[in-house]
């Protein structure tokens, strides 16, 4: 039984069909890649799966439940989390606060608690601080903990976004081009972390343009073109698929 399964999804705006009858499955603890040219519908698929864009038909199932009609935040609370193509850091907050904010279901987010259970909040903050430190150690963000997130480099922002997801303790993470605009050293580091997370049992779905890097780490791959899934299977099989070669500029990969 798949953890995330997208079934016969169609979506579009205006007269334009961004997704056309798309099926996609990510199993428990699996590491899956998603490739395609610009405008193939990859990011739109992410947005439909996570609830940012409504599907005009089709269903989304997660952990055995139909989540098609759920709001974004409800899906996240069930363990389905994503990053964005362009990093969406909280630019005027420090790296530390970015991570602290990400922790789910905090007592201190309730206004009444600010008055009535201040002790509880203090304990909670201490517990979360420890967790944030773990995450920062894991992602090597210790040195920049007090920096404003807006001042980080592109690669560090991607790490930070990954860190925020980790604070959520998700079951499945969807990474939208995590390596784009990141220097090679950091890519290496990011790759390792993603693999390590996957080994801890978190399912991962990655959109990536860097096919070489992707083929190296994922055992299974989907390819999309013009809103449809045109191939899926092992990286070698997908990359050899004529339809995929055709979509990628007449076979030059």
């Amino acid at each position, binding site marked *: 039984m798949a953890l995330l399964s997208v079934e016969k999804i169609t979506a579009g705006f205006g007269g334009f069909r961004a997704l056309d009858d798309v099926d996609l499955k990510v199993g428990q603890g699996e590491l899956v890649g998603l490739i395609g040219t610009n405008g193939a519908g990859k990011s739109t698929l992410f947005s439909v799966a*996570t609830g*940012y864009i409504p599907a005009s038909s089709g269903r989304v199932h997660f952990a055995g439940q139909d989540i098609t009609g759920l*709001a*974004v*935040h*409800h899906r*996240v*609370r069930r363990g389905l*989390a*994503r*990053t*964005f193509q362009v990093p*969406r*850091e*909280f*630019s*005027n*907050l*420090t790296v*530390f*606060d*970015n991570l*602290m*904010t*990400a922790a*789910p279901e*905090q*007592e*201190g*987010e*309730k*206004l009444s608690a*600010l008055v009535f259970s201040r002790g509880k*909040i203090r304990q*909670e*903050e201490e517990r979360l601080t420890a967790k944030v430190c773990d995450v920062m150690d894991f992602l090597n963000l210790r040195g920049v903990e007090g920096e*404003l997130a807006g001042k980080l480099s592109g690669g560090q922002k991607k790490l930070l976004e990954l860190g*925020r997801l980790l*604070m*959520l303790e998700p079951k499945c993470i969807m990474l939208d081009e995590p390596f784009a605009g990141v220097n090679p050293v950091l890519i290496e580091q990011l790759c390792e972390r993603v693999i390590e997370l996957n080994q801890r049992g978190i399912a991962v779905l990655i959109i990536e343009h860097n096919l070489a890097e992707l083929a190296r780490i994922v055992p299974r791959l989907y390819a999309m073109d013009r809103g449809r899934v045109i191939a899926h299977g092992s990286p070698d099989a997908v990359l050899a698929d004529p339809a995929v070669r055709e979509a990628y500029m007449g076979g030059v990969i």
Partner: protein
Amino acid sequence: MEGYLIAIFISILIYLLLAGGLALQYGFTGLVNFGHVGFFAIGSYTSALLALKGVPIPISLAAATALAALSAYPLGMIALRLGGDYLAIVTLGFSEAVRMMLQTEEWLTRGMHGLPGIPRLFAGWVEPQKTDLLILILLVVVCVGVFFLIHHIIKSPFGRVIEAIRDNEVAVRALGKNPAQFKTRSLMLGAGIAGLAGGLQAHYLTFISPEQYVPLITFYIWIALVLGGVGSLRGVVMGTVLLVGFLEGSRFIRDVIGGVSEVQMASLRIWVIGVALICVILYRPQGLFGSSPKRSR
């Protein structure tokens, strides 16, 4: 002399409360509220009407705060569904709707005739000349309290989330939090503070009428925020002092320089505000007294 200074400070402090509420909404949550004066009006009329019915002033002030905050709830629900761009026009429309209601529902508000004879704060406690001083002291206490509260809120986990919403709402949703919930609360908090300011003003002026609650008041508060700097409480305080100080201080300019007619002076005053606003935004985006926003821990 002292009496006049007290009056100016009272007026500064009332604006300061309004600015504090708006700072919470815009400066820290990113809500573009252009109907702040509507909450101010609701507070004024609630407290005044209750007090005229014989309700003790502390209770009527509490009611004013509560009702202003509650009135923000449905507004938030509607406006937040529509998304950021629309909040400005929806809130502006709301404040005009409130004013029209105050003008029209004569059975309740006496319409354009206004409400005279509102019980004054501390009336009968001391000799009449001293009540203003007591009101000033009360306002200072209230302001310090409210700003302490705002400070406390923005340093809390709740504050972290609203600032995150200001910076990137989409990402907050990606963290499993419902921004609408936080935004509604921030809107209500700010509205409640404005309502309290309204109640205090009513019991200070002892006369209120719908003409006092025009959108210009909202714009003045925005100007104060932008002049001082949005992202910090220090900027908010300084911006308000500067604006009200200028509006009032410009009376003296004419006494001193002369040669400018009253009509021209009024035009000049607005002109200076307009040009100052442009220049601050162009050349000092963080405001005259603001530093770039940063959370300290």
